[in-house]
């Protein structure tokens, strides 16, 4: 039986938000249609990446005094969640890894062939595994305390982006490999903006679909390579220059985008659209979670990734509070595990398994209460969005705790970069906090609670959408789980932090 659903022949292709188009702000659309707009965002992060690598490899190996550890584990992570919460996937938009594209294409031409990404890897399972590997490594190797390893991680990212781009089609790395990007993809579900078609009927009449496939535009058509649709300058509304305008590298077609999953905010679609018909539309941060936006295209792997991110986020934070060390010591004693790496991996696997079991249970109980029958996978696909929203709240609270604690330290850290290299600079190490300590708990608990409320709202909307009059029964198990998770998060945030590099005992 075919699962294909015919697209409507008039009006919107899919359910897209119709809010205020940010690109209608003065100058913004014109800027983003400029072919070098993305480069403007990428260059600052490329420069920062150079500082990270240089200081990480050659600077003082003290995490709070090194650009590598400070910029990577404090500022990058804090600003990522701020951007996701307030705007969208801004850090993929500015990703400097994509500047390896040019050299990769040159190498690809030398190589003479391009491989197909294996079909069995075309889902979110691989990236979930890579994300797990990074989170385990973060704790096991103390990446947060090692500028040198952090620099190597940055180099590995550049090398991986380059290698994947050389061997496979553009966009493969972003879509199927990049753990950072997929973290952003998953949590941009809670962002207040989305790419959407301004007028879907215009898309319907568009033959070349340049937002997806790209286009070439030259006054002299003989200059075109011929692998993209050629549109003459007079066919372009708001002409934005001659040249090649690539389409979406992650294979998203604007009028059929149901959410922001896989959208790198590169704005290739904005530049490629000959009709200036792509918008960046304001929407409710819960919209994507309440419209089954990942269902048709990404399905269970994406939902599972989003669900696991909730539990990994909890573990990532719990690993900094004293009860974790007691529990880890007990587990080491009970199992005889002496290797911290093995112990951390065991805890990670246990947390993932228990987390998935709890997540499945909540979703299944809600389905059963609503009369939907026993179908665990279907239940998780339905209710998993709730976990994504509450998970983002906790990651945001955790990362913001660190960011607010030390955001201003970037000033003395950069001063120290130059002092270390012989410049007459006197770092002011008193610069650290962005807000008084007393504000940290109310702020972070408030953020976690706000997203828990949003998750409760998502629960109610999904219940009403799928269960009609039985929604009042269906939503209770998930609502109860949401409240318990929120309470657990607030308790974790209230505990005193302990930043230890070893979990089986003090180093001295």
């Amino acid at each position, binding site marked *: 039986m075919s699962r294909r659903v015919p697209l409507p022949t008039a009006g919107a292709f899919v359910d897209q938000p119709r809010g205020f188009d940010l690109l209608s702000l003065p100058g913004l659309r014109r800027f983003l249609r400029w072919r070098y707009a993305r480069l403007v965002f990428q260059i600052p992060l490329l420069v920062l990446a150079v500082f990270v690598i240089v200081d990480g490899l*050659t600077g003082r190996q003290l995490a*709070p005094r090194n650009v590598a550890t400070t910029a990577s584990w*404090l500022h990058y992570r804090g600003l990522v969640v701020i951007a996701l919460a307030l705007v969208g996937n801004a850090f993929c938009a500015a990703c400097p890894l994509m500047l390896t594209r040019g*050299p990769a294409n040159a190498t690809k031409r030398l190589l003479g062939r391009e491989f197909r990404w294996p079909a069995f890897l075309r889902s979110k399972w691989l990236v979930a595994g890579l994300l797990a590997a990074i989170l385990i490594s973060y704790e096991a190797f*103390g990446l947060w305390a090692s500028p040198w390893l952090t620099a190597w991680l940055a180099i590995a990212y550049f090398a991986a982006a380059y290698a994947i781009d050389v061997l496979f089609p553009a966009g493969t790395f972003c879509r199927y490999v990049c753990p950072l990007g997929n973290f952003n993809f998953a949590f941009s579900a809670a962002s207040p903006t989305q790419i959407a078609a301004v007028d879907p009927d215009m898309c319907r009449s568009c033959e070349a679909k340049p937002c997806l496939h790209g286009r070439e535009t030259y006054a002299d058509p003989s200059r075109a390579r011929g692998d993209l649709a050629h549109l003459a300058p007079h066919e372009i509304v708001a002409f934005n220059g001659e040249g090649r305008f690539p389409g979406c590298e992650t294979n998203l077609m604007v009028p059929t985008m149901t959410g922001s999953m896989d959208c790198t905010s590169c704005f290739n679609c904005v530049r490629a659209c000959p009709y200036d018909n792509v918008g960046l539309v304001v929407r409710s941060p819960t919209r994507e979670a309440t419209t089954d936006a990942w269902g048709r295209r990404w399905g269970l792997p994406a939902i599972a990734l989003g669900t696991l991110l909730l539990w990994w986020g909890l573990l990532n934070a719990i690993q900094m509070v*004293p009860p974790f060390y007691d529990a880890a010591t007990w587990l080491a004693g009970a199992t005889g595990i002496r290797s911290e790496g093995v112990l951390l991996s065991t805890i990670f696997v246990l947390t993932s398994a228990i987390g998935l079991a709890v997540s499945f249970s909540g979703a299944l109980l809600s389905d059963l209460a609503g009369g939907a029958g026993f179908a665990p996978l279907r239940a998780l696909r339905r209710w998993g969005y709730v976990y994504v929203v509450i998970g983002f709240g906790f990651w945001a609270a955790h990362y913001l705790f660190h960011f607010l*604690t030390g*955001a201003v330290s970037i000033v003395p850290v950069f001063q120290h970069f130059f002092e*270390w290299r012989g410049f007459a600079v006197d770092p002011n190490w008193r610069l650290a906090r962005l807000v008084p300590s007393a504000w940290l708990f109310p702020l972070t608990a408030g953020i976690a609670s706000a997203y828990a409320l949003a998750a409760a709202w998502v629960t109610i909307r999904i219940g009403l959408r799928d269960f009609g009059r039985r929604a009042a029964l269906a939503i209770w198990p998930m609502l109860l789980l949401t409240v318990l998770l929120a309470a657990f998060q607030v308790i974790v945030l209230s505990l005193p932090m302990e930043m230890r*590099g070893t979990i089986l005992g003090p180093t001295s």
Partner: protein
Amino acid sequence: MRSIAVFLSLTSLLWLTACRGPAPDGDDSAAAASGSAPDVVMRVETPDAPSVGPAVIEVFLLRDDDGVDGAEVDVVGDMTHAGMEPVIADAPMDARGLYRTDDFAFTMAGDWILTVTANLPDGERLRDEVTLTVRSP
């Protein structure tokens, strides 16, 4: 041209993979450590079981087993996680060759690195690092 420039600048970074910053002076895994100028020895002593709260860090400056007076000593405590505000304290002389912090406090449990710097009267500068784990009270 742009892509070649980016490629060259990125690959040039690979040369740095052979580099590493200088290792910290002294034994950084002990609760007490020492550094030395040509003839001056610095010993740093921390509490046996450090916990969150006020702590006294003692710094001994010895030349041929005789205490060195008149040095300016400061102690900077950093956590191993980026972004934590360091604790900075002077260690005035308490007895001949003995310098003690009087307003130093560990602000959070976890791994700490103490950087002790002594500026000697003759212009010599000694520096030492000590790592230790601070417990909750």
